[in-house]
């Protein structure tokens, strides 16, 4: 962890604020781009660290992607964590706040409907891309792919499955495999 220089704080804000306004369908939608920016463009994390921080951000409670907070922290300490969190959450929060007043008037118009329908497949594609990018960044190779595919299939079959046991199960399974393999 490096202490925050002004440069890296500005870079964090410049990376996360636009992503906030692009994350249609939720924070996961911009996962692929967060990975690209954090690993390749700015070198805030290695691929290994990104995969670990991603998992940590999901093991902790809270909304969507606290990943921004962790990457900000990694890049520039506590100030970085604050800047990245604010940059990632505030723009979309302000937008939805403003939109709540205007949007109601458009309900029922063909535009309202078309925007909702048009954005949906892109959001879905971005979700899938985010998962793919993290899988490719993970150095653990095929077992992670296999476990991800099994989890996907299980969730499609039984949508009511609670996520927490799945997360714990994944940790326990891979922990045991690693302990047995060494």
């Amino acid at each position, binding site marked *: 962890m490096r202490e925050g220089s002004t440069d890296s704080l500005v870079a964090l804000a410049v990376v996360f604020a636009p992503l906030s306004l692009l*994350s249609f369908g939720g924070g996961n939608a911009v996962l692929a781009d967060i990975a690209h920016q954090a690993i390749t463009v700015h070198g805030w994390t290695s691929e290994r660290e990104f995969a670990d921080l991603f998992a*940590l951000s999901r093991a902790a409670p809270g909304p969507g992607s*606290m990943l921004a907070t962790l990457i900000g922290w990694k890049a520039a300490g506590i100030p970085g964590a604050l800047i990245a969190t604010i940059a990632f959450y505030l723009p979309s929060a302000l937008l939805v706040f403003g939109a709540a007043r205007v949007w109601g008037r458009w309900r029922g118009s063909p535009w309202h409907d078309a925007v909702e*329908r048009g954005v949906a497949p892109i959001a879905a*594609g971005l979700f899938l891309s985010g998962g793919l990018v993290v899988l490719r960044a993970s150095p653990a190779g095929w077992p992670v792919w296999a476990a991800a595919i099994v*989890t996907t299939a299980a*969730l499609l079959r039984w949508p009511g499955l609670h996520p927490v046991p799945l997360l714990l199960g994944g*940790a326990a399974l*891979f922990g045991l495999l690693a302990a047995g393999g060494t």
Partner: protein
Amino acid sequence: MARIFVAFLRLGATSFGGGTAGWLYREMVLKRRWIDDRSFLAMLGLGQAMPGSNGIKLTVLIGQNLHGAAGAAVALIGLLMAPFAIVLAVGAAYASVGQHGLVHAMLDGVAAAVIGLTFATGLRSIAQGTPGPAAIVIAAATVLGVGVLRWPMLPVVAALAPLSIALALLKARRR
């Protein structure tokens, strides 16, 4: 106001595994009855068309509904404060033990499960939306550009979004 803050603070600290929208529904609609079903669904629909984390958008809208702009701000700060502190504590713990192979392995297991959740959500939302050929092609093009070729997301979305919205308009008109 204090009650709004405490309610969202608690929610933030206990909503494990993502899916904040579900937790909000349970707490605000079923338990506290601050919001009725109909307005919750309207907020969810509005949020869906906007960018941003779903939990954040709902929090802003519920806060706004309860106590205007101040309510929205208090709810948002309440929701984020605990996860912010917890995730940093976890991050600091990771920094001190993260080099251990077992930690990597366990985090890989968590990541695999989370990716499964992500894939399932993406696939299910394609199936639930308009499963026309156009939507599937758009979703596939997004995956190809951003996920496989790793193009930056901004130009990909800027190119596909107008196309996708235009196709949806055309389809609605033809009916």
